[in-house]
């Protein structure tokens, strides 16, 4: 890692520590703590969708399902076995990543050959199936609670966990973006036929991007499950997948900074309106925020950060070569 990135990581750690101090000293109340954590969890999940849709160009409406799979599988681990042991919680997060990634791999193999809208429909179908599975899961695993919801999950998620996960997620995604596998992934979005003609194994990189994105969703789901200590199938309804899609598009497809900003902004806006608006007109939230969406998309059709990154997330600069006279095109003049 080069210096500006190192500075950025250090700055992020300092910011996380400052928030932790604010929490411990009681300057930030429990409600604010919850919102900040939830905002970061949304960030991790939507970064994952940005890998799939923004980097790789695969239109997935299944992201919420992988988020749910991560949430339920991690919750099962802690509820049934490890309780409030922090190592157990770490293990549960890993299990969530493996379950989401593994299912993504198995589901991805047959459906990733589909393109755009067709892939969207197939992944939407998957989301509906997973929701039905959660609704009826108590028939096989009583601890999952089925349509009554899953209760008694240890409340393990705390700011340090969320902060570390968010920083790791951003750093890994940036490293991926500016590497050969990352470039290969993006070339598929640009032109799949040309990519394959340039030696890019398109099946392989589509699978890598899909699995990686779903692992992000799974980890975010695990943190979410242990934040609220309660899971309900309706949290993973297919409609919720559009919230994630919206954040990624709003931030700008393929922009890491954009997804981070949009995810934080979206969460804070919805919660902020809850504080600002009187309770009788609270439903106006869902008028105000779509209106803001429409305005943003009209003013910035490529999203807030379309094609842009914050300085520390930008591609490393590569100095140009010195000019040499004997180039082919020069010779032919």
């Amino acid at each position, binding site marked *: *890692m080069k210096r500006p990135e190192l500075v950025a990581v250090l700055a992020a750690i300092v910011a996380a520590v400052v928030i932790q101090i604010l929490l411990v000293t009681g300057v930030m109340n429990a409600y604010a703590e919850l919102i900040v954590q939830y905002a970061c969890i949304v960030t991790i999940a939507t970064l994952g969708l940005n890998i799939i849709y923004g980097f790789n160009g695969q239109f997935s409406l299944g992201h919420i399902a992988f988020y749910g799979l991560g949430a339920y599988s991690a919750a099962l681990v802690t509820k049934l076995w490890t309780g409030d042991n922090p190592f157990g919680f770490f293990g549960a997060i890993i299990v969530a990543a493996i379950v989401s990634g593994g299912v993504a791999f198995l589901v991805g193999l047959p459906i990733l050959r589909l393109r755009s809208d067709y892939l969207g429909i197939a992944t939407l179908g998957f989301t509906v199936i997973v929701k039905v599975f959660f609704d009826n899961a108590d028939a096989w695993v009583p601890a999952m609670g089925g349509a009554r919801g899953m209760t008694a999950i240890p409340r393990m998620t705390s700011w340090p966990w969320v902060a570390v996960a968010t920083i790791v997620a951003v750093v890994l995604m940036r490293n991926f973006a500016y590497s*050969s596998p990352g470039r290969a992934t993006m*070339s598929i979005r*640009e032109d799949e036929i040309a990519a*394959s*003609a340039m030696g*890019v194994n398109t099946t392989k990189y589509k699978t890598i991007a899909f699995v990686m994105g779903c692992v992000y969703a799974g980890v975010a789901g695990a943190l979410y499950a242990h934040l609220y200590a309660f899971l309900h199938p309706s949290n993973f309804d297919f409609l919720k997948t559009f919230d994630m899609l919206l954040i990624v598009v709003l931030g700008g497809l393929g922009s890491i900074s954009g997804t981070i900003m949009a995810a934080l902004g979206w969460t804070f806006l919805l919660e902020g309106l809850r504080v600002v608006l009187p309770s009788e007109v609270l439903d106006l939230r869902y008028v105000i925020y779509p209106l803001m969406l429409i305005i943003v998309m009209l003013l910035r059709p490529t999203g807030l950060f379309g094609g842009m990154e914050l300085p520390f997330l930008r591609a490393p600069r590569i100095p140009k070569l010195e000019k040499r006279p004997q*180039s082919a095109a020069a*010779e032919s003049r």
Partner: protein
Amino acid sequence: MPLLKVDNLTKNFGGLKAVNGISFEIGEGELIGLIGPNGAGKTTVFNLITGHYEPTAGDILFDSRSIVGVPPHEVTKLGIARTFQNIRLFGSLSVLDNVRIAYNCRVKYGFMEALLRVGGFAHEEKKLTMQAQELLQLFNLADKQDEPAGSLPYGEQRRLEIARALATSPRLLLLDEPAAGMNPAEVHNLMELIQFIRKQFDLTILLIEHQMRVVMGICERVVVMDFGEILAEGTPAEIQSNPKVIEAYLGKEVA
């Protein structure tokens, strides 16, 4: 021993015989033109060779190994690169990245090393960036490395596409109408460029082209296709005076 041997190659799209039992050979180091009227099946032949289409029948031998059924990225790895008739660059990615992507199949670090920035990552990345930059310099595109490929002027996009194809280190280069849409001065430069890269990179080249100036000027042998079949084969001079070729292009004289 020919580098590429196409044997009785056939491709049907439903009832349409796009390519109908054609056979030809390309020797190591040759520069061959593939010409024919629109819809003759020239680009289909390219797509068959590069693995984008599966042939209905027939065989393609590259370096005496059958490459029928080999996926496109593997064909590229074996040493066949191509450009496209309607330029297919990675438009929103930088010029440099367009070329660096073509090194992907030979990169020596994996996904995990890229994520964690360990192992040979830094060294390998530096090496391939250097190679890409040198290639761009050779094509007079070094100054534009950070611009999105889609924003380049047309002629430079054509040049970049050839540079990108060469980055895969091919032995056989397939050029699909490289001179399309170029003005006479650009065509002249292109012809010299093709001859230059052929020597510089030790290439065998198969070229689809409509501009007779290019074909007759640089090709050693010409294969003429019409309605999915080979109409004639020979030196440019022979082809120019072949009555069947003239008929395919200009039509029959009214008796």
